[in-house]
């Protein structure tokens, strides 16, 4: 079982889209992410990021671009479309609003941080970004993946029960508590893939 999990894990790494107008920063973030076992795509602008996602405003939504994106990390200050504007566009699109977005900025401005978090950013990293920052983001992303995975399984299970029992009682809302404590994460959470972690969670649920 574990062996099968390991095999699958290596095929499903997190795919991160990194957006930054600075070539230096793109090179560094790419390395940080690769060392953290992620697949990386770097682009130099918000417009390019939207194009990659298939959300090009001029051409209309073209749908997914093959490789699914699990996380977007974007610089805040960019010419043209800022990271904040990109964040808004992503969170307001039905197709991509679920993708976690992390903002990176060299400026530690409270109002800026607040508005990004308000618009739905997962985290706000102050540059220069370090390996510990990336590992923490990966951890949070995987934990979030576990929560989402558990939520989805509860929804499916409940739907199945409703269909079969034809109960008159209305289905109560799915407990959605993003801040609820998760079962203790595996110690290798930083480097294991979401699929691997989901498998571990599943095994724990059945015990």
């Amino acid at each position, binding site marked *: 079982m574990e062996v099968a999990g390991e095999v699958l894990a290596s095929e499903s790494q997190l795919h991160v889209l990194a957006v930054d107008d*600075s070539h230096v920063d793109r*090179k560094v973030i790419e390395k940080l992410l690769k060392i953290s076992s992620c697949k990386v795509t770097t682009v130099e602008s918000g417009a390019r990021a939207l194009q990659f996602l298939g959300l090009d405003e001029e051409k209309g939504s073209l749908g997914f671009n093959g490789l699914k994106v699990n996380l977007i990390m974007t610089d805040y*200050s960019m010419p043209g479309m800022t990271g904040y504007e990109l964040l808004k566009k992503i969170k307001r699109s039905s197709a991509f609003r679920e993708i976690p977005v992390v903002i990176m900025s*060299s400026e530690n401005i409270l109002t800026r941080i607040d508005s990004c978090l308000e618009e739905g950013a997962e985290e706000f990293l102050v540059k*220069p970004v370090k*390996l510990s920052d990336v590992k923490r983001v990966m951890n949070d992303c995987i934990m979030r993946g576990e929560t989402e995975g558990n939520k989805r399984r509860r929804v499916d299970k409940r739907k199945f029960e409703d269909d079969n029992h034809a109960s008159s009682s209305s289905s109560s809302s799915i407990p959605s508590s993003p801040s609820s404590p998760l079962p203790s994460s595996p110690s290798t959470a930083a480097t294991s893939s979401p699929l691997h972690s989901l498998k571990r969670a599943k095994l724990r649920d059945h015990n």
Partner: protein
Amino acid sequence: MLGLAADRLRADMNRLLSFLFHQGILDEQFLQLQQLQDETSPNFVSEVVNIYFHESEKLLRNLRTLLMDREFSDYNKMGIHLNQFMGSSSSIGAKRIRNVCLAFRAASDQNNRAGCLSALEVLEHEYCFLKNKLHELFQIQQQRVLAAGVRYPMQH
């Protein structure tokens, strides 16, 4: 003979790095870059730094062109170049350059053209100095690699 050369090169490298850190020219972000270098990307640091040199020279040229224009008034545009330069400098750990950029930005915020010109000169000087020192560092590292290549396999 070869062992002594390798030891001397390592000592040279450490002395240079110590100097750069001690003088506040580089900070721990540079160390972070070195830690990211591995067998899959053995030239990572020099690659990043070369991109930095390329970007920086463009930005410095833009800053000078803007400030030399007698009718210069677009502090906004200058601020953009400055922020880019400050950002990439901080990303490679070029602490002193970043600090000069901060002073430059302060002058720019006050629309103080003379102050900006002054800061730009310091910036150009510091950039030249850093570039020379980093080239020296990479040269030593290259020589170390070559020296290590001729070693007998059993020795450290």
